[in-house]
């Protein structure tokens, strides 16, 4: 009980991922939706670091660095896109945008 084992980290990672997923699907504000994808990424990052420590190699941490880079670039992209949309309609509601449909 006193020792934090791999499965604890994995559980945390999975839970963060799930929370992100649920938030992504349930929240309608686009910035919050984006934060949720970030949450999913961070869940994965916890996995990676935990696995790295478990296997005793640095690959997990190296992977983490790259994931953070991707996350950062996606953040800049997301903010740019969201700002563009906000200028058009003055709303951040994801459901306001359904001009394109089946």
């Amino acid at each position, binding site marked *: 009980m006193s020792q934090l084992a791999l499965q604890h980290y994995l559980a945390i990672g999975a839970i963060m991922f799930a929370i992100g997923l649920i938030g992504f*699907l349930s929240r309608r504000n686009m910035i919050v939706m984006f934060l949720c994808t970030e949450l999913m990424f961070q869940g994965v990052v916890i996995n990676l670091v935990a696995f790295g420590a478990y296997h005793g190699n640095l690959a997990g941490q190296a992977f983490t660095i790259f994931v953070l880079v991707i996350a950062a670039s996606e953040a800049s992209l997301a903010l740019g896109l969201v700002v563009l949309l906000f200028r058009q309609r003055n709303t951040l509601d994801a459901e306001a945008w359904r001009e394109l449909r089946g």
Partner: protein
Amino acid sequence: MNDLFAVHYSWLFPLCPLIGAILSGFLGAKWLKSQSHWPIWIGVGISAALSLCLLFHTIQLSNTTPDTISTTITWYHWIDIGHFSAAAGAFIDPLTAVMLTVVCCIGFLITIFSKGYMAGEEGYFRFFAYLGLFIFSMTLLVMGNNFILLYLGWEGVGVCSYLLIGYYYERPAAREAAKKAFLVNRVGDFGFGIGIMLIYLTFGTVSFFGAGAGTHTGVLELATSSTLNDFQQHALAWIPFLLMIGAFGKSAQFPLYVWLPDAMEGPTPVSALIHAATMVTAGIYMIARCSTLFVQSEAALLTIAAVGCFTALFAATIALRQFDLKKVFAYSTISQLGFMFAGVGLLAPVAGVFHLVTHAFFKALLFLSSGVVMHAMAGELDMRKMSGLKHVLPKTRWLMLVGCLALAGCPFFSGFFSKDEIVGAALSHPSLLGRIIGAVLLFSAFLTAYYTFRLYFRVFEGPLVTPHAAHHNDHDHSHAHNHEPLIMILPLFILMLGALLAGYLNFPKNYLGDFLGHSPSFQLGYQTARSATGIDVPAHAFGQPGEEHLDMTTMVISGAISILGILLASYYHLKNRPASDALVQKFAPIARLLEGKFWVDEVYERIIVDPLYAIGRAFTFIDRIVVDGLVAIISFIPQLFGWSLKLTIQRGYLQGYGAAMLFGVAIILLVIFL
């Protein structure tokens, strides 16, 4: 004979007209325009020169050798699938040489005439391109060394005929006529095609003479072999009938003749070239070429002779009461083709081919002359509306007169000799049927003389009447508008020489016959005929060396009959025109029957076309209700599926898409791990 120039370069025969056709077809619309005739003139001209060259060289050869003259040239290996192979190549013998000369030379004259006749027509280049294509197909037809090539040319001329009949496609009548010609020919070609397939099944080859005459590897030689198995013998009983159906269709014999009169909707040069001189004689050529196949079956020969004879009489009677110049000549063509069929059917193929040659000259002359009339009369061809045209068209009148004399079989004109040979062959035929046919042919010849001169006297003699009087205010000869331009009269003049002199090709000695006798088709046909039929076939009928035969009695009778017909016509239509009307009044029902062309078209309409339409409507109904219904149901399933997808997930909600994706992920994970 392979060293002959024209043989060595035999591929030039079809190629030159084809190149001409391609050039004027593709360059004509934009660049050549009213000069579109040049590629065809040059292309067909080369072919015509080559054909004369070939003819003279072959004649020279035939004078020095008693053997057969033939050669097979392979152009290239065309089809090679499994055991089936057909090489595209030429088979050249005296028959080919004669046919090539007729096709190319008359074709050349007609292309020259066409420049004057067609000048200023819409789609001038199109006309010449089709003409070149036609001569290409026709040379293939008469040169091909196997049945496949023959069939290709056969269909090719059919297509060109269709295109040219429908040349004035704005006119509904032309469209209908083109369709009719095509469809009726399909009936014949169907039989022909099956015949060729049966030939391949029976003999395992489609070549006429294999690698050459005497090698016994081609159909025409294998058929004479004495070691045929049962299947081959049965097949040989059928093959002539199947090929015959094709010949009847292409050469407009009863009951498939109905397309030819309607085909006169095409431009007149086309009627002259395709529907009088060349294409319609393809059937005669084919039967003469394959005589070894035909002479073995007495039934087939008698069928051909009987159908030919009946057609000759039948068409001649219809021609009696036609008023359109071209229609008269169309029925006359059908009738003369019947004579030729009777000739080949009664074991006298030389006479048939002889008549083919003379007929090509004088019928082309007659059609082109009526083309000049039509040109001058602004398209009017009804002989009731014209009379005494010799004052307006003095040159044409003489040309027409020579043509009519030849057609009527007036002594010393070409038609006389060739027709007489056929009649003579029939009368000297040992069977009773042969003699009956001879008698009927004589009567048809009498009718021919009568209706020919009815036309001539009505149109060219008597007081001047033209359909468009206003068009010809000055009836004297010095009017500014020349109705007989040199470019049209010159070819006619050459044709007229042919119509005058072609008869002497086979008279007083059988020059043409001897020449044709060097063809392996004729030689083998003769031998087979003697051994297969048991009839004492006269050697000269196949052009084989033997006693010369000059049947003076028949000559005198047929000459007299022809003159009688002319005199009768001159009484009713020149001296005493009202008398003819009185005669018509007297026999009004018969006249109506003839004017209605025995109502054959109407009968066909009732018994063939209408039932087909009814069946078609039934099928349409089934198609619409049953098949379309099934299709609708089948196509409804994916649509239903699609709508359900579209309404559930393709609604434009970003998070809806996300949820759908996640749903899919969940299903995948569940399926794999549970």
